[in-house]
């Protein structure tokens, strides 16, 4: 069909929205509550366009044959300006401490529509700031009530965020119900257009690791970070940036920079061992546990499945442990004098490192977690020219990672690595639905039923099914975020499925550059096993952990 936008004819298909047709043809219509991965909220009312039927929201209105649309009339402009001023009246600006700083859509539109940001007094200036665990903060003085956070929280099968009250007393807030708790995935951060959610310490604490002058500061970089840090600097997804990242961290005062995929190879070896043991003892199914949001989810919502979680530690925890033992010993320093900072795509890792079960003789394997976003911000604050900085080699005290180790950053990576290590096979997975893939692999006399899951609502469905049918799968990988760690809550914004797909490609490319041997045959890994991890006690101390049923965490509220 044909429609008319601003007096020009355009082809359109039935079912398309005005916004979709406009975007396809390079016609700009402002949006704010719109996020491509959540349902259309049509609530901000900035995308109103003029039609013969009146002013209609472009985001939700489907095109009709011959429809005449005007996107930029005096009236639409003035309506958008007023709605923006009303939105600003409920949004307390904190621009310097905002994850959208430098690419804020609200501010861009304010400039475009000559908005008086402070026309009305901030209605929410006395609203509270909440802290969830050690991971997340929700500043409700910034909330514009679009409810994207509520939807993504429900899409994680969690539903921790709720609406309370009516009229101007209405607010979005964490649930007081005893059976609801945050699992720290941070998807709310990525889907909030107003920057009301952020990671704990995201602005105030990012310099802290560099103040540890009396310590050896070791950074370790998660696989997924290499696929996304370039976004902070407008670099193409395909850019090879690890060398720059290493150089920049050292420039700021990092003593060493290690690669978390090396830790992943240890996780793989241990997890493959556990899988074998469980096959032999007929103690399946087994669930992965690299994703701390998933672990939190099981510990709180499905404690009956705790025995099914692998006891193997996540890669950065293992690598941190090795750093504080072997590396410290080699350098002749005490573990307390090594300060390990993990650079992660994840905010749940901030919570994970606080777990007592992970301590090695009273020492935390990882002292600090910094997200991809935070590292990006740090470099910008210090005016590091990321594009020009000269690349440096990453440090490899335990050898280089295998290709499998790098693949941990995307959904399916953990499962593929463990199965490859155990069986030498790389099974083809088939998508059953978005976020759930299945495969079968023969090992000895047994056929193992495998599933790779991302998104916790999918995981919840799998768990509910497995309550009925415990052997539906033998081995299941779960990642809380869409696409795995590359879609994590610590990643740069904007983040959406399309961007995550690009990160996946970049990560595959990075993984393809590594040696394709079984993680267990990685010479560096073998050396560590021979020299240090040569007893059950040592292995258990450095590579394994335990889980416990978790009660509701107190919600910290200030103001």
């Amino acid at each position, binding site marked *: 069909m044909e429609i008319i936008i601003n007096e020009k004819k355009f082809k359109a298909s039935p079912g398309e929205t005005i916004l979709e047709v406009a975007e396809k043809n390079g016609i700009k219509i402002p949006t704010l509550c719109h996020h491509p991965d959540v349902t259309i909220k049509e609530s*901000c*009312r900035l995308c*109103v366009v003029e039609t013969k039927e009146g*002013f209609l929201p472009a985001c939700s209105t*489907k095109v009709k044959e011959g429809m005449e649309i005007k996107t930029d009339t005096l009236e639409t402009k003035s*309506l958008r300006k*007023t709605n923006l001023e009303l939105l600003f009246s409920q949004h307390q600006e904190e621009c310097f401490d905002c994850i959208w700083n430098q690419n804020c859509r609200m501010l861009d539109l304010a400039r475009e529509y000559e908005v008086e940001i402070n026309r009305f007094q901030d209605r929410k200036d006395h609203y509270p700031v909440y802290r969830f665990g050690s991971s997340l903060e929700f500043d409700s003085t910034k909330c514009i009530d679009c409810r994207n956070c509520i939807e993504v929280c429900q899409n994680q099968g969690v539903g921790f965020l709720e*609406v309370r009250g009516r009229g101007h007393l*209405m607010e979005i807030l964490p649930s007081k119900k005893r059976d609801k708790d945050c699992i720290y995935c941070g998807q709310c951060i990525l889907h909030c257009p107003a920057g009301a959610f952020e990671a704990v310490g995201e602005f105030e604490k990012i310099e802290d690791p560099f103040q540890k002058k009396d310590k050896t500061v070791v950074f370790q970089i998660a696989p997924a970070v290499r696929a996304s840090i370039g976004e902070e600097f407008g670099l193409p997804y395909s850019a090879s940036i690890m060398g720059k990242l290493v150089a920049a961290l050292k420039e700021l005062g990092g003593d060493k920079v290690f690669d978390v995929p090396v830790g992943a190879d240890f996780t793989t070896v241990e997890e493959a061992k556990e899988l074998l043991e469980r096959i032999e003892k007929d103690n399946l199914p087994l669930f992965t546990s690299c994703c701390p949001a998933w672990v939190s989810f099981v510990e709180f919502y499905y404690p009956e499945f705790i025995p099914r979680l692998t006891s193997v530690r996540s890669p950065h925890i293992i690598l941190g442990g090795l750093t504080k033992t072997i590396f410290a010993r080699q350098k002749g320093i005490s573990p307390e004098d090594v300060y390990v900072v993990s650079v992660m795509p994840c905010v749940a890792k901030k919570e994970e490192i606080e777990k007592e079960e992970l301590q090695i003789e009273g020492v935390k394997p990882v002292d600090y977690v910094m997200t991809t976003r935070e590292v990006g911000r740090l470099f910008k604050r210090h005016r590091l020219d990321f594009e020009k900085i000269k690349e440096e080699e990453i440090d490899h005290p335990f050898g280089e990672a295998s290709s499998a180790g790098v693949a941990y950053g995307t959904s399916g990576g953990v499962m593929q690595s463990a199965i490859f290590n155990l069986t030498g096979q790389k099974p083809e997975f088939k998508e059953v639905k978005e976020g759930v893939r299945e495969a079968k692999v023969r090992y000895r006399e047994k056929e193992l039923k495998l599933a790779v899951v991302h998104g916790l609502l999918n995981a919840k469905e799998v768990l509910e099914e497995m309550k009925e049918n415990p052997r539906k799968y033998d081995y299941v990988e779960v990642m809380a975020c869409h696409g795995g760690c590359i879609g994590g809550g610590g990643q740069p914004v904007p983040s959406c499925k399309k961007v995550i797909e690009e990160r996946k490609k970049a990560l595959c490319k990075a993984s393809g550059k590594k040696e394709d041997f079984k993680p267990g045959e990685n010479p560096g890994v073998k050396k560590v096993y021979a020299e240090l991890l040569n007893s059950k006690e040592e292995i258990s101390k450095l590579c394994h952990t335990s889980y416990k049923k978790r009660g509701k965490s107190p919600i910290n509220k200030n103001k």
Partner: protein
Amino acid sequence: MEQENIISKIKESGLSGRSGSGFPVASKWEAVKKEKAKKKYLVCNASEGELDTFKDYFILKNYSQKVIQGMKIAMETLSLSKGYIYLNANYFEELYDDLKSAIGKENIVIVKKKGGYIGGEETAVISVIEKGFPEPRSRPPFPAEKGLWGFPTLLHNVETFYFVAKIKEKNYRKTRFYSIWGDVSNRGVYELSENSTIRDVLGKTGNTPSFDYFLQAGGGGGGTIMLPDEIDIPFEGIASVIVYRQSKTDPYFLMKKWVNFLLEGNCDKCTPCREGLYRIMEMIERKDFKEIDEMFFVMEKTSLCPLGRVAVKPFQSLLEKIILQKHGNNH
């Protein structure tokens, strides 16, 4: 044959929806009939959320049998598999048993209304019956195309079903129910000719004021303020009239009552209605209306549902006809 018969009878009668929209009833039936679907549903909207308006209560209290008959006729004519009565929570306890016995063995379920005023908007009604939030969505698609659980759904006001039953028994005399409230001698609900002017309705019920007054026609929350010389026209919207005595009415108090009602009763989903109303409240408190037209404009033009779009009417008309007349533009 019989099917066509009742639809054409409704068409001939010219019966229009009594929710206030005035939409031709026969067109809705034809729209639902036209849809091809495995299931189709029926909803009787008895949410009656307008301030100081209670004609649906009156009908349910006195003629529940007729209403159920009207629903039954629709269900048989259009092969609707199940019916719902979406009942105002304040009426629930009093009317439930009576309605239950009127329903008898029919496949009709009573659902308690959720949320405030907005809980009565037709797409919000559907959302609540589906066990969702009392929140509207954009139309189209209209409930007749995609209603309950995505199936075609015939949705009418209580009074509409009452008159469908009357048409079937050839007893429809082109009347409607008028709700009268405020500073009058005979408050109540009256059945009079559907084309009655506001003045007639007051006159025929012995309610013509003998003092200086203004009135609100169309509901105590969304109705327009009218002066005595403007009332020689039939009702627009809901057939509800509230009379205010000039000497006893504080227009600011009245506006505060409306704004509180709307802030309590809206869904808080869209910016203009949620934030615009809040700023209107501030302006009323400050008695400073310099910027109020801009709020009216943005609410009227960009609100998501009819509530926000019509909510401005009482304020606009009261300001124009009463407040600014008395106090001039300085306020």
